[in-house]
Every structure is written in C-alpha cells, then in structure tokens.
C-alpha cells in the first residue's frame, strides 16, 4: 500500500512554546485513522500544523509523496487536504450555501452535483441553505463543516474533534456518513477525537497521543476495545 500521508518528527507550537514534538505518523490510502488523547496534549496543534496554519519548526510532512513541509496552507488545500476545524469553524455570516461554495474552491471538477450529494447526506442543510451559518445549531454546524470539506473532493479528510458539543444521535449520524463516504469514494480520513464512542465506531486504526507526541498505536480489534481506549484517554 501507498502512504498517502507521512509525518516525520515534526515539532510545532505557538511562538516559543513547543506543544508537539517528535511526532510521527503514517497513513495509507483509504484508511480511517484516529488520533486520541486527552484535552490539551497537542492534538489540535498537530492538526493545525498539518493543514499549514502553524509552521512546523522541525521535521517534514509528505502528502501523496510530495514534500509539503514548506507549502502554504492554501496550496496544501489545493493538493487535496480537506479540513474540518475544531469548533466547526463555519463562516457565521455566510449562508450555508456560501459556506459550501468556499469549500468547493479546491474541487477541480467544479460541479454543483456535490452539493446535492452532501444535501442528501445532511437534508437539514438543504432546508437551510439560504440561512446564515451562525444561526445553525451545533450539530448543523458540524454537518456543514464536514460538507464544506467534502465538496472540495479532497483526497484526505482531516477532522478536529468533529463531535464537540453535539448530540449523540447526530454523532452517530456523522460517523455513519463518514464511514459511508470512506467506503463509497475511498476517501482517506484522519480524525482527532476524545469521544470513545466515535473512535470505536469509525476508526480502523488509532494513534494514542500524550504530551505532544505519539505514545502508542492501536490496531485491528483493539480499536474496538473500550478498556484499552479508556486507558489512553484517562492516563
């Protein structure tokens, strides 16, 4: 198999404060991989470094065998990284439709059919497509953020705590849809999460993170093992 993403020994943080260090992961095409860990151990910092909002001070990132270490955030998006930010990060005064249009920028096919695709996944968004995103509920905002990333037709979907602050039934719905997209389109998914249910449901493989670095890898059946996951989440 080909590694679609390879992260080698990156070091990153805010200003002089180093949050992520000696960080290594490798993801193969078509996988759904999660990174788990408690709050405040650098999961989001890693994701921001991966998508290019934060510069990595050391190490390298390869995406589709291209070195993107020094590539700017918008060019990383163009190369096929779709991003769902923590707290959803929708543009509050843009309408649902406009939010989707910003996501569509990087879709080289440029067809609006994708809108119907995501509206089919999340019918609530179709009903509210003319509404300002800031007026949506938390679950709807999460759905919108995911849809916005999907309409860009990315090769890799990166989600930063997609279920933060949303109801369990929507969590299930979202995980079903992501799994389905993964199966339908062969989309590679990397997500960061602390919600054990979602981790169990979705991930095929799982990295455990603590103190800014990867401390373990959970594979195969262990991914479904509540006790093992819990151990990593509540060190």
């Amino acid at each position, binding site marked *: 198999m080909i590694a679609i993403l390879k992260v080698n020994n990156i070091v990153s943080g805010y200003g002089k404060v180093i949050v992520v260090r000696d960080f290594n992961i490798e993801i193969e095409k078509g996988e759904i991989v999660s990174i788990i860990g408690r709050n405040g151990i650098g999961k989001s910092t890693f994701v921001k470094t991966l998508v290019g909002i934060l510069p990595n001070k050391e190490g390298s990132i390869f995406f589709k065998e291209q070195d993107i270490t020094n590539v700017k*955030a918008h060019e990383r998006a163009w190369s096929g990284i779709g991003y769902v930010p923590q707290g959803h990060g929708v543009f509050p005064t843009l309408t649902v439709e406009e939010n989707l249009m910003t996501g569509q*920028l990087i879709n080289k096919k440029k067809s609006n059919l994708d809108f119907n695709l995501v509206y089919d996944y999340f019918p609530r968004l179709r009903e509210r497509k003319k509404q300002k995103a800031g007026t949506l509920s938390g679950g709807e905002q999460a759905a919108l953020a995911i849809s916005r990333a999907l309409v860009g037709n990315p090769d890799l979907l990166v989600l930063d705590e997609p279920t933060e602050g949303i109801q369990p039934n929507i969590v299930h719905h979202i995980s079903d849809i992501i799994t389905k997209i993964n199966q339908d389109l062969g989309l590679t998914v990397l997500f960061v999460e602390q919600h054990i249910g979602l981790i169990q449901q979705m991930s095929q493989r799982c990295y455990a993170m603590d103190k800014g670095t990867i401390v373990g890898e959970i594979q195969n059946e262990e991914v479904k093992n509540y006790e093992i996951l819990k151990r990593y989440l509540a060190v």
Partner: protein
Amino acid sequence: MAIFELIYQFMNNFSFLILSAVGLAIIFGMMGIINLAHGEFIMLGAYITTLATASGVPLPLAILLAAAGVGVFGLIVDRLIINRLYGRTLDSVVVTWGISMILSQGILIIFGPSLEGSSTPLGSISIAGATYSTYRILLFFIAIVMLGIIYWLFMHTKFGLYSRATMQKHDIANTMGINTNKMYSLTFMLGAALAGLTGGLYAPTMAVSPTFGSAFLMPSFVTVIVGGANPLIGTSLSGGVLGVVNSILDILWGTFYGRLGLLVVAIIVIRLLPLGFSGLVEKKLMRGRGI
C-alpha cells in the same frame, strides 16, 4: 423650492461621503488597515484624469484610467510595503502616513503646485425655477451604481465570497484553499482603485493640486467610523445618515455646523455602537434569523 433644494443637497452630500469613503472602508473593513494615504490616492486619481483629458482622452475614459492607474499603484504599494503589515493596524498608520507625505510632495515636485483643471461637463438643468448641475446629479447615481456594483462584487461573485470568508476567519479560509495573501492584495488594489475613481470623478469639479486629497480625508474617515467594518452595509448606511445630518445642518445653520455635525455624529455613534452601523445590522440579522 425647499424640497428640491434639500434633495439636491442630500444627493450631493451623500455622493461625496460615499465616494470619499468607499475605498477607505474596503481596505479598513477587510484588512484592518487604516490608510492615511487615502486622500493622496484620491489626489493621484485626479491627476491622472486631468492629465489624460488634457492630452485629449475623453473624460469618462480618463476617469476609468484613473481608477485603473491608482489600482495598479495600490497593488505595487501593497506588494512592496503593506503586505508586511497585515494585521498590524497601528503600524500601518505610520507607514501610510509616510506614503502620504511622499506622494503629496512627490506630485508637487513633478507637476508643480497646481494643474490646469478641466471644466465640469454636462451643464445644468432647471427644476422649479432653480438650476442644478447635471454632473453633480450624475455623481449621485454613479455613487448608487457603484454601491450596487460593490454589492454584486461582494455578494454574487467568487471573489466576494472568498474575501468575505477571509475577513471572517482568515485561517480557516486559508485552509479552504483561499490564498488569503492574494485576497488582501486584491482588496488593497480594489480600495486604491476606488479612491482613484473618486479622484477622477471629482477632478473636473475641484481645483487639482497636491493637497487635493485633504478635502476628502476627514469626511471619509467619519463615514468609515460611523459605518463600521462592513464596507457595504456600513458605508451606505452611514453615507445616508450623515448625508441627511449634513444637509439639514448645512441648510439650517451653514457650512460650519454641517461639518461639525459630522464629527459630533461620529463621536456619538461610536460611543453607542463601537462597531458602527454595520455591527448593529449584523447583530440584528443574526438574531432575527436565529429565532
């Protein structure tokens, strides 16, 4: 008579405020940069128009040339200087102050203290026994059309969509594949081009000199302050309100009170609504839809 008079006054004030402010508003609203060289950008537009008409270019074309020329100039300034200051509002004050000094003195050195102006075109029309300058009335409609075009540009084009996204959350917009630095450059260029357009439009009605821009600076700042960050909603609303205040005070008590009135309204508005009219409107909009 009085009612026509008042309408004409308002049209005049409104177009003057809108046209002075719109370039400044776009740059301030989108980029958070206070462009103290705004007046000089307008002056540059006036020079381009006047020089072009003097060499035989028809006025409408000369005005467009001013917009294009100042736009390109803005782009150069942005690439050389401003792009290093994105997000540093206060440093931009110092730098644009320096730019304005260089521009007004540079123009004085090159073209001398004054330029032969061209006359205002289009003559005048009579309504109810009083005559009004047709060009001035035209300026009002140009201001309205320009607001329309800006509305279309920001609300119905890809450029507008991406720039609104950038304005709201530039990090996230960046990760959506939007080259935010390029958006900022284009925005600065657009703001400069609009300043150039304003200079071109007013060149035939005013004395053209290196200090041409200073007449615009105060009204433009007041309009932007009252309007707030949203260059469209804010500017048109504040242009409207200030236009009414200015016209009424002007007619009742004279030019000085019209001018002072602008400043007082600005102080009151910013005290009550620190985010200006656009802050108020956006809040209402979010709440209205939310329920």
